[in-house]
């Protein structure tokens, strides 16, 4: 066909609503009312709940009351457990951030504002379920009872480091706590988690896996591989997209065009897909438990988009005031997960600010003690240090000739 006159095309480059100097603007974030989202039976087919990919599961209302069909029936004890773990995570993060500033370690990353994601999900899973996290789910380890000193030793690359100084700070691995080795290459864990779940199903095991990926990292191929494989083989896996609005300096629109949701990705694979208020401990818990129940019943994978906000910099190397409005974190419409769970405990009754203060003091004391314990084993650049001889171990199970030779040449 012949060419006709057309208007000139133009390249669209997405831009966030605000930059430094502008007021925060979350007007594009549509927030359905708490309690409004429907809750399908866990054995409903994916095709019968496509609407949920565009909805938002919220349980806690503005006053901290749990409302609607997703309000989980959980003991108050577990709520306190959740609050404790979130506070512990926040305290741990603060301490390690400071440690980096003090030169005790090369790097650190906080999860402030997103603690409900890791903590509520850890509590909704079984201890034996396998987690494939990113660098921002340290809360999984703390909620599962991993001693903070052990994590600090990794951050310090010291003599107590279970990873023998090999990994950058916060790239934990802890088989004992069902926590897969974190990769520096974002996204790779997402597809691996599906393989692990397939293996569990293959063996007739009853453990499931869960994986996390950041909003920005969904653009990697592994995200697509994970969903393809999970759908085709009905793998017992929970696939979580932690949409904290930012990927270093890039806003969400650079990953998803702002014309849809991350949860909607699941629709194209036939995987049930939910969107949840990621700062609502109860909603996160409920949705995760729902997905876990599906997986355990051999009904396959669920995709969960957790809508939250990265309240601080990407890492110790980052300064978010360079690229986003100064007060964005404060203006985030879904609030703070710790404050919201505390408010809920208060509405339940029998919970006072003093109880909260006690939990906070407990966390501070625990982290301080852990810090002492860990630092006694050295920090990066001072104190006791691992022997470099070990740097040639574990490349292969048995050391081949060339590494033996290189170890000799290194004189270690």
């Amino acid at each position, binding site marked *: 066909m012949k060419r006709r006159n057309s208007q000139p095309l133009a390249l669209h480059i997405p831009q966030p609503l605000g930059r430094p100097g502008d007021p925060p603007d979350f007007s594009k974030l549509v927030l359905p009312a708490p309690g409004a989202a429907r809750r399908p039976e866990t054995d409903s087919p994916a095709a019968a709940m496509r609407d949920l990919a565009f909805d938002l599961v919220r349980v806690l209302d503005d006053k901290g009351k749990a409302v609607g069909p997703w309000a989980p029936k959980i003991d108050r004890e577990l709520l306190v457990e959740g609050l404790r773990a979130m506070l512990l995570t926040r305290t741990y993060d603060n301490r390690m951030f400071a440690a980096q500033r003090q030169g005790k370690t090369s790097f650190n990353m906080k999860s402030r504002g997103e603690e409900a994601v890791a903590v509520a999900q850890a509590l909704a899973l079984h201890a034996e379920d*396998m987690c*494939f996290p990113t660098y921002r789910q340290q809360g999984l380890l703390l909620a599962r009872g991993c001693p903070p000193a052990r994590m600090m030793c990794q951050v310090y690359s010291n003599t107590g480091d*279970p*990873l*023998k100084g*090999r*990994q950058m700070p916060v*790239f934990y*691995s*802890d*088989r004992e706590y069902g926590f*897969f*080795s974190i*990769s*520096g*290459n974002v996204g*790779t864990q997402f*597809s*691996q*988690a*599906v*393989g*692990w*779940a*397939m*293996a*569990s199903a*293959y*063996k007739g095991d009853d453990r499931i*896996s869960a994986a996390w990926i950041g909003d920005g990292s969904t653009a990697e*191929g*592994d995200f*697509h*591989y*994970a969903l*393809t*494989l999970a759908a*085709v083989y009905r793998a017992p896996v929970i696939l979580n997209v932690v949409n904290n609005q930012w990927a270093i300096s890039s806003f969400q629109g650079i990953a998803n065009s702002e014309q849809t949701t991350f949860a909607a990705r699941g629709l194209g694979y036939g995987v049930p897909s939910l969107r949840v208020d990621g700062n609502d401990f109860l909603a996160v818990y409920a949705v995760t438990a729902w997905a876990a129940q599906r997986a355990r019943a051999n009904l396959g994978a669920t995709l969960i988009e957790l809508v939250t906000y990265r309240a601080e910099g990407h890492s110790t190397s980052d300064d978010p005031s360079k690229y986003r409005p100064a007060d964005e974190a404060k203006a985030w419409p879904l609030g703070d997960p710790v404050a919201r769970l505390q408010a809920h405990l208060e509405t339940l009754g029998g919970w006072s600010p003093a109880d909260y203060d006690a939990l906070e003091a407990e966390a501070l004391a625990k982290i301080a003690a852990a810090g002492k314990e860990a630092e006694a084993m050295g920090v990066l650049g001072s104190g006791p240090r691992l022997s470099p001889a070990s740097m040639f171990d*574990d*490349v*292969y*199970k048995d050391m*081949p*000739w*060339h590494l033996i030779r290189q170890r000799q040449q290194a004189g270690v």
Partner: protein
Amino acid sequence: MPSMTMIQALNSALDNLLDRDPDVLIFGEDVGYFGGVFRVTDGLQKKYGLTRCFDGPITEGGLVAAAVGMGAYGLRPVVEIQFADYIYPAIDQLISEAARLRYRSAGQFISPITVRTPYGGGIFGGQTHSQSPEGLFTHVAGLTVVVPSTPYDAKGLLIAAIEDDDPVIFLEPKRLYNGPFDGRHDAPMQPWAKHPASETPSEYYKIPLGKAATVREGRDVTVLAYGAMVHVSLAAAEQSGVDAEIIDLRTLWPVDIDAITESVARTGRCVIVHEATRTSGFGAELSALVQEHCFYHLQAPIERVTGWDTPYPHLFEWEYFPGPDRVAAALKRVMEG
């Protein structure tokens, strides 16, 4: 002992392991019901059931990622990549993940996975059904790279690869699948049945990784080769009249350095043969190693006979392929050096 083609020998290796070890499973594009485009997994799904040998989506990256996850769980997955030319989408999972998992987790998690893939030219496959990417993998700490040259070796090495606790890239010279091709493409095709190394036990056996085989003893020059180039080198030795000692590396990395140095120290000359593009191919490492270990024994420059530094051209397949004429010429050249 039955005579097998390389395809049958590989199939037999997989058959033995599916039978012995419930943690071994196989997947890849078209490997299930159909049995693979080269028929290596023929009959295995039928014999062992759907979950032991099944089709995967066309996602090499995803297949290897799934294998890494399965390996971390405790299985021994075997992934087929339909052609080595299609392994690149899986490179991140191989380099950043499989190869480093044991190291970065200090042994908490391992990757006992095997990635099988047909490689090399000679079937008029053009640039995307002919490549030899083995050199890339030898640069990656943590990977083991294996290339068999006979049915007997193929079976024993594949069993060893699958039982190895670290990731193995197992490259199958596709031009040898059905016969011991020596590069004389105009000559009638030889069947494996006439070749002694086609005698292959139906039972389980292993050939240790990291050990080369001397397939021809000789005094004049050491030839380092693997895959189809072993047969090409044998033909070239006969053709040239040079008394070459031909070493079939079998495991490219970690390479059998003792076999190499012992031979070169004796012959004082070395020719390296591979089909991959020349620059920064595995031949470069072999040359560097020989030079480092045998400098004072060398009587002539080490020669590399390789594929040219171009994509594999469809029409000029045989001009590209380093056949016996080119190898023979190199043998003669080093004898003059």
